[in-house]
């Protein structure tokens, strides 16, 4: 293409990273899925024909929420460590993120166990059960997928396969984790504050 006469424009040609753009696109798509489930939840608040109602059985999971939101901070700190090449600190913070995520998912498991075996609320009990388990379950599924990804990266880190050259990929993955945390803020607000 050298025969093209050169126009006055001769500048550097920076473009956004494809990883970031791809992950942001995925997040936009996922947001739409969550939006539909949130709309269904809000639409059916108080429409159940039989109990139990959210007021009777739901407890606000404050400790869980603090753990999950802190994991966004620890993963952010981990991102900064890998940029500087401090792999030990990165591994520690990354492991802490996984631990916080595990505490969250364990807390959800305990909550569901109580709801099912003590309160007798299942997905087929009433509209509240249907919308609650699907919305919170959809989020929990995302946490589990995130935890699998985080754990894989931790294993690669421990075996020495991750270094500062991978910091951008790590940050792209961290975007997903931040998204999972941000969605929890919405789910928490809708389920435990508005709907209760």
């Amino acid at each position, binding site marked *: *293409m050298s025969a093209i006469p050169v126009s006055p424009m001769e500048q550097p040609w920076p473009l956004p990273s*494809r990883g970031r753009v*791809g992950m942001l696109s995925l997040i936009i798509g996922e947001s739409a*899925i969550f939006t*539909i489930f949130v709309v269904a939840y809000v639409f059916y608040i108080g429409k159940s024909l039989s109990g139990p109602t959210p007021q009777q059985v739901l407890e606000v999971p404050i400790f869980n929420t603090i753990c999950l939101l802190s994991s966004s901070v620890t993963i952010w700190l981990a991102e900064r460590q890998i940029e500087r090449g401090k792999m030990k600190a990165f591994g520690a913070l990354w492991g802490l993120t996984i631990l916080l995520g595990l505490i969250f998912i364990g807390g959800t498991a305990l909550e569901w166990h109580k709801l099912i075996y003590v309160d007798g609320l299942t*997905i087929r009990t009433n*509209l509240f059960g*249907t919308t609650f388990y699907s919305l919170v379950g959809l989020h929990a599924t995302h946490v589990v997928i995130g935890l699998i990804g985080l754990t894989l990266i931790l294993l690669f880190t421990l075996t020495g396969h991750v270094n500062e050259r991978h910091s951008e990929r790590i940050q792209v993955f961290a975007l997903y984790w931040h998204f999972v945390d941000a969605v929890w803020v919405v789910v928490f607000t809708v389920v435990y504050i508005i709907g209760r």
Partner: protein
Amino acid sequence: MADQTVPIAGSFDITPPRRSPSLLLEWLHGWVVTVDHKRLGILYVVYGIFFLLVGGAEAMIIRAQLAFPDNHLISPEMYNEMFTMHGTTMVFLVGMTILFGFANYLVPLMIGARDMAFPRLNAFSFWLTAFGGLLLYYSFIGGFGLYGMGGAPAVGWWAYAPLSEKPFTVGHSTDYWAISLIVAGFGTLGTAINIVATIISLRCRGMTLLRMPLFVWLMLVVSGLTLITITPLTAAQVMLLIDRYLGGHFFDAQAGGSATIWMHFFWIFGHPEVYVLVLPAFGIASEIIPVFSRKAIFGYPAMVAASVGIAFVSLGVWAHHMFTIGMTSVSNAFFVLSTMLVGIPTGIKIFNWVATIWGGKIRFATPMLFCVAFLFQFLIAGLTGIMLSVAPWDWQLHNSYFVIAHFHYVLVGAIVFNIFAAIYYWYPKVTGRMMSETLGKWHFWLFLIGFHITFDTMHFVGFLGMPRSIYTFEADRGWNTLNLVISIGGFIQAIAVLLFAWNLVHSYFRGKEAGNDPWDAWTLEWAIPSPPPVYNFAADPEVHSRRPLWDLKHPEDPDWKYEA
């Protein structure tokens, strides 16, 4: 450039491999494991054309059944399966795959890139879509379930719940519908992510956003729109499956669930979906019309703005499919007005295409013929759309054949016509051979005549009160002649499509050699040999205007002097 088959002469051993006995197997294996955007694009389009024939055959069965009053050619259950599968096939397995196939093939070439941003995700997405389609069609034999009930999905392509709930649709037919579309939907989502990342991150030097070919712009808008429109359908289908398999109550009116919320969720997906299909068709027209009018596109920035505008407005019009369910007058008024608003950016586009043709040196080759027919038909489709957007008018004609005529004017008159135009236009690039113009003109005129016989007449039979999705009708309704005419038009279209399929195959072996640039076009894909080499561009291209090949061909008068 034609002799440039490797980037640097002598750098590779290009002697052809020896013929081995398993050559066919190797060739097949090559296509299955490929991550090349060009091969995947071809796979998408071939897959789409195959299902175009299947979906077309289903339409022919529908028209054969409706050709005469009190007809019992097929059973009522079979009839329901046919119109459900026809709609589902044409939207998800034909429209989406062919248009995303074009995007796969053309976007990297048009922006001067080596491949898509995520080649393996690209292959994964294609195979997901392909398996989704196979799963849908497996329902013909697998849908009977344990109790021998069901068959292929028979609930309409919109699958309105609670009709599609377990008590009303036994067997596994609806499960096949939901699961296959979830699978195909994830494939579509992957491709959309890929296209967005490709266009944002892989443009060649100098390809600023406002220098991208309009087809690339439209695919960026469409992919962005796909991200937020396919996903609500996936979410709603997951809810439907929760109801059907886990005993949930999302759409269960007996447990307090709503009978209309599925409609909202479905049309929040379904209406923008129409724009997901028609915007790439706009992109095709915006590439072909300038080349065959020998003029640069008129009002490029307005075209871009109108595309983005259409995408935005399309997100807020879904309930115009639901005027008859009894919404409040405020909601009705909102959706009437938002729907009419779509007419403004689309009108801008039509004016710009006409202004591009105006005063041009027009060549009526087959691609241009299809595009000109598209202009007229899309205008009429838009006008009947404005009519239907008026709520009281819609109360009269809702679910009538007038609606069927309106949306087939969009889906066939605009989208399919432009898909044909695109295949005639880019076939030489993909295969290195021209398609036969004689057969092409036969195809065009037969299809045009058949199209108008069928769908013009459908408007009238709709005015006379014939509802959609009915199995048959009594002889004294006054619809007899019109229905026969519609069916005859349908079969003329079928003959035209068969001619087209023959042309595709015949030209692959017997077509004229195309050369790099048979149409004297201006976008980057015509700068490289046909078919393009695996690596696309021997050297990374650099562009300075919206028509890089014009600059190359006319160094004394390059475009960038005029593009501020």
